[in-house]
C-alpha cells in the first residue's frame, strides 16, 4: 500500500492506495507550518485503521514552492552572479522580472568576466579581484545564498564550479545553485531557474525537515518521494537541492489523478480549488506540456511543465457587483470561517452554490435570504468564466470530455458549452493526492557521443538504454518505460560529429513487494 499526500495552498489531502484502489481518503486544511496539516491527515488515516508499517512508499506532491514564488513569500535574498562579461553589458540578471519579485531576491547583482565561447575558447579571463568583490558584497550583506550562471555552462561548467569553490571557501555555509545543474542551453532562462531555485533553498530545508519529522512521528520507515513538474518522483533529499523542480507538480498530479479516476486518456481537466481553477489537457493519459518558455511568477524559465491555464474562480472567490463579478479575489483558505454558510460575513462562490441548492455545505439557512436574481446572475457568471477558460484550452471545435476535480468542483454546472460530457468522478476532491501516489519513476542519462564513430540511431539507443537502467534500478517496471525527452547538443569545437545527448525516460513504480525488474 502507498500513501499519496497533496499539500495545496488550501487543503492537505491524503489517500491510502492499495494497488489501483483508493482505500481511504482524507481532506485536511493546510496549516501555516505545513506539518500540522500533514500530521492531521496522517492521524486520520491511522485512526481509520491504516497500518503504517504496511505502507511501502509515501508520495508527496506540494505546491508550496510554486506558491512561495507566486506570492513572493519565504524567499531568501540571493546573490545573483553571472559570468560572461564583456558580453551582455547593460543586461544584468533579473532584467525583465516583475519588480516585486526582483526586490524579494535583493539587489546583490554581479556580472563578472570569465566563461567560455561556443568553440571552447575563453570568452574572457576570470578576474580574481572581481571574485573578491563578490565575496565582500555577499559577506557585508550577510547573504547565505547565491546563484551562479556562466555563459555556455551546459557545455563547460568549469567557471561555475570554480567560482562556487572560491565562494564556499570564503563563506562557510553558503548555499549555492549552479545553473548547469538545473537548466539547459539558453542563458537567461537557465539563470532565472537557478535564481528561483536558490531563493527557495532555505525554505526547502524546513519543508523536508517537516516531512522527515512527520515520517518519524508515524513510524513510516518506507521511502518518501516528492513529485516533480514532469510527473516523476524524486527522493526527498533531492528537494533540499532542487526545490524548483517541484514547480507545477500540483497540476501534473491533478491531471494524472483525473485520468486514473475516469480511465479517460484524452480529456480536459478542470481542477477547481479555493482561489483558482486550473485547466489542463490530458493527451494519452499525460498532461499536455507547454511548448513555450514557461513563466513562473512572471519569470521566464525553461522547465518542462504542463500547459495550464489558471483562471480566477474557486470556492472562495468573492461575489461582487450583484453577481456580475466573481473573483479573482478570494478568501482562500479562510473559506471555512469567512463564507456565509460557515458563519462568516463574506459572500463567496460556495455560498451561491449552496443557495442554489446545488450542494450541501455548511449552514444553508445562512444564505436563505439571498435574492434569486443575485444567485441566478452569479451562476451565469461562473458558467461563463469556466466556458471561456475551456474554449481557450481547446484546440478544435469538436466537443471534448471534461473531468472536474478539486474541492471546488461543485461550482461547475451539469453541462458546459464545448464539453461532450462532464465527468465528476468519485474521490475527485483528492485527485491530486491520487496523482501523486501514481507518479512515475524517472531515469535520466547524459553522454558525450561521437557520430563519426557511432551512427546516431545506435548512439541514441545506447543513451536511452542507460536511462532505462537508471529508472529500473530506482524501482520502475521495465515494460512500462517510455522516452519523454531527448535532447541533443552538438559540441562544434570538439571532433566533428561530437554531441551531448540527454535522454529522460519514465516508468510506473513497481510494487515494492515485486522485485524491481519484474512486471507486477
Amino acid at each position, binding site marked *: 500500500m502507498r500513501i499519496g499526500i497533496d499539500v495545496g495552498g488550501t487543503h492537505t489531502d491524503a489517500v491510502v492506495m492499495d494497488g489501483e484502489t483508493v482505500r481511504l481518503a482524507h481532506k485536511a486544511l493546510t496549516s501555516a507550518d505545513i506539518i500540522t496539516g500533514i500530521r492531521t491527515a496522517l492521524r486520520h488515516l491511522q485512526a481509520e485503521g491504516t497500518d503504517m508499517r504496511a505502507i511501502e512508499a509515501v508520495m508527496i506532491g506540494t505546491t508550496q514552492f510554486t506558491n512561495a514564488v507566486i506570492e513572493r513569500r519565504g524567499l531568501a535574498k540571493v546573490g545573483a552572479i553571472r559570468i560572461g562579461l564583456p558580453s551582455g553589458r547593460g543586461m544584468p540578471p533579473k532584467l525583465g522580472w516583475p519588480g516585486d519579485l526582483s526586490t524579494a531576491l535583493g539587489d546583490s547583482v554581479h556580472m563578472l568576466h570569465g566563461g567560455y565561447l561556443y568553440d571552447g575558447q575563453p570568452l574572457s579571463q576570470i578576474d580574481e579581484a572581481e571574485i573578491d568583490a563578490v565575496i565582500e558584497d555577499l559577506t557585508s550583506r550577510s547573504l547565505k545564498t547565491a546563484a551562479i550562471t556562466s555563459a555556455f555552462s551546459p557545455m563547460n561548467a568549469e567557471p561555475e564550479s570554480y567560482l562556487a569553490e572560491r565562494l564556499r571557501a570564503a563563506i562557510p555555509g553558503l548555499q549555492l545553485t549552479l545553473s548547469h545543474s538545473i537548466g539547459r*542551453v539558453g542563458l537567461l532562462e537557465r539563470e532565472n531557474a537557478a535564481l528561483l531555485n536558490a531563493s527557495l533553498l532555505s525554505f526547502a530545508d524546513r519543508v523536508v525537515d517537516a516531512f522527515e519529522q512527520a515520517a518519524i512521528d508515524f513510524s513510516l520507515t518506507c521511502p518518501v518521494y516528492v513529485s516533480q513538474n514532469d510527473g516523476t518522483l524524486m527522493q526527498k533529499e533531492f528537494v533540499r537541492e532542487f526545490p524548483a523542480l517541484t514547480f507545477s507538480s500540483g497540476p501534473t498530479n491533478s491531471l494524472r489523478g483525473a485520468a486514473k479516476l475516469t480511465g479517460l486518456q484524452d480529456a480536459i481537466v478542470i481542477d477547481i480549488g479555493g482561489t483558482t481553477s486550473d485547466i489542463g489537457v490530458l493527451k494519452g493519459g499525460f498532461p499536455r506540456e507547454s511548448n513555450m518558455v514557461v513563466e513562473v511568477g512572471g519569470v521566464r524559465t525553461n522547465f518542462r511543465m504542463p500547459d495550464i491555464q489558471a483562471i480566477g474562480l474557486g470556492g472562495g472567490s468573492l461575489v461582487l457587483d450583484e453577481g456580475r463579478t466573481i473573483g479573482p479575489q478570494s478568501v482562500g483558505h479562510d473559506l471555512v470561517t469567512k463564507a456565509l454558510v460557515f458563519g462568516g460575513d463574506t459572500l463567496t462562490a460556495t455560498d451561491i452554490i449552496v443557495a442554489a441548492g446545488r450542494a450541501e455545505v455548511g449552514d444553508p439557512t445562512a444564505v436563505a435570504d439571498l435574492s434569486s436574481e443575485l444567485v441566478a446572475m452569479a451562476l451565469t457568471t461562473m458558467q461563463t468564466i469556466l466556458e471561456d477558460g475551456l474554449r481557450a484550452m481547446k484546440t478544435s471545435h469538436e466537443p471534448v470530455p471534461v473531468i472536474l476535480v478539486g474541492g471546488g468542483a461543485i461550482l461547475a454546472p451539469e453541462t458546459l458549452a464545448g464539453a461532450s460530457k462532464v465527468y465528476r468522478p468519485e474521490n475527485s476532491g483528492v485527485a491530486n493526492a491520487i496523482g501523486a501516489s501514481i507518479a512515475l519513476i524517472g531515469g535520466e542519462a547524459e553522454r558525450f557521443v561521437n557520430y563519426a564513430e557511432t551512427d546516431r540511431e545506435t548512439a541514441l539507443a545506447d543513451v536511452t538504454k542507460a536511462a532505462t537502467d537508471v529508472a529500473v534500478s530506482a524501482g520502475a517496471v521495465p515494460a512500462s518505460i517510455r522516452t519523454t*525527452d531527448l*535532447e541533443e547538443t552538438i559540441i562544434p569545437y570538439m571532433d566533428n560529429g561530437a554531441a551531448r545527448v540527454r535522454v529522460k525516460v519514465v516508468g510506473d513504480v513497481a510494487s515494492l513487494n515485486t522485485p524491481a525488474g519484474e512486471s507486477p
Partner: protein
Amino acid sequence: MILDVDDLADLSAGAAFLATGGGGDPYLTYLSACEGLRKYGPADLLAPEEIADDALVVAVGAVGAPTTSLELLPSVDESIQVLEAYKSLTGRKVDAVVSFEIGGGNSLIPIVAAAANGIPVIDGDGMGRALPEATMMTYALAGIAPTSAVALDYRGEAELIEADTTEAYEALIRAFALERGGMALSAEFQMTGAQMKSCIVPNTVSLSKALGQALREGNGSAQQRSARLAEVFEPSIYGAFKNLYSGIVSDVSTSVQGGFDVGKAVISPLIEDGRAPLYIDIRNEYLTARQGDAVLASVPDLITILDFETAQPINAERLRYGQRVSVFAIGCPAHYQTDHALGVVSPRAFGFDFDYVPLMR
C-alpha cells in the same frame, strides 16, 4: 511614425514570424532593445520615400550562428558603438539606418541604433524575411557594394572590412563572427537614399508590427488564427498564405557548420492518421517543406513554424522533440522572383535538386 518601448513587443513578435526559423532569439533582442529605447529615447520610423535621394544610408544588424546568441548576450551600448566605429573607421557620417533583414532580432537592432544616434530608421528591409547570407539581400542583388563595412565583436572591438565582392565580404564577416564567439554586429551596404528606394523591400517594419498585433489579438490554436493572419499577408507584397501541416516534432537535429545552424526536422501527425511526415530542411532558416516526393514550399517563399496551441513562432534553435506545431508557408516579395534573384535564393542555390515553384494564392 514614432517607435517607442511599447511598440517593441508586437514588432518583435511579427519579426519572429517573418524570421522563418532563423534570426536569433527574439526575446533577447527584444529585452536589449527595450533597454536601449529606455536609455536613448524613441526612434523615428520614416517611409523609404521620405528619405532624401542623396542621404547616406547604412544597413545595421547582427551576423552569426543563432544558437550562440542564446548564451552570448547582446550589449545595450553596441548599437551606439557600431555607428561610432563606422564613422571613425570610414570617416563617413550616417544619415539614416535600415534593417538588412526584418526576420528576427535584426528588425530591432537598427531601431535602437537610430534612437541611440539620433537619426531615422527606414520602414523596410533587404530581405522581407530572414535568409542566411549577405549575397541574398535585395541590396546585394541590386548591385550595391557591401563594403566599406565595419564589424563589432562582443568585446566592443571593431574592424574595417573591405572586399571586392559580396561573396568575399560574406566570408570575411562570417570568419570575423566565428573567431569572436559566433556573433558580431555590422554596419554595411552603404547606399544613397535613391539606391535604397530602388531595392528595399518596403513597409516591412510596419507590417511586422501589424502581424504582431494580429498574433496578440488572436484566439485559439494556430490553425484557428490562420484567417486573421491571412488578412495581414494577402493584401501585402507577400500575397499567398497557407497552413501546410500540423503535427508533432518527432526528430530534430542541427549542428553548427561553417557558421550556420544546419539540420533537419521531422514533423509527424499528432494522431496516426495516415499522413506522411513533413520534412523541414534547416540552414539557420526553414528552407524547404517536403512530404514524400512533393515539395510543399521552398525558399525564397517563407516557411514558419508556430506553436500549435499558442500560435507563437518557434525558431529552429528552440524546436524540440515532442512539440506540437503548425507549419505555414507565405509567398515571397516580387524582389525574389526574378531569374537574377533566383540564381541566389532558389532551392538549387541552396544545393537542393529541384526548382522553385511559387506558392499559389
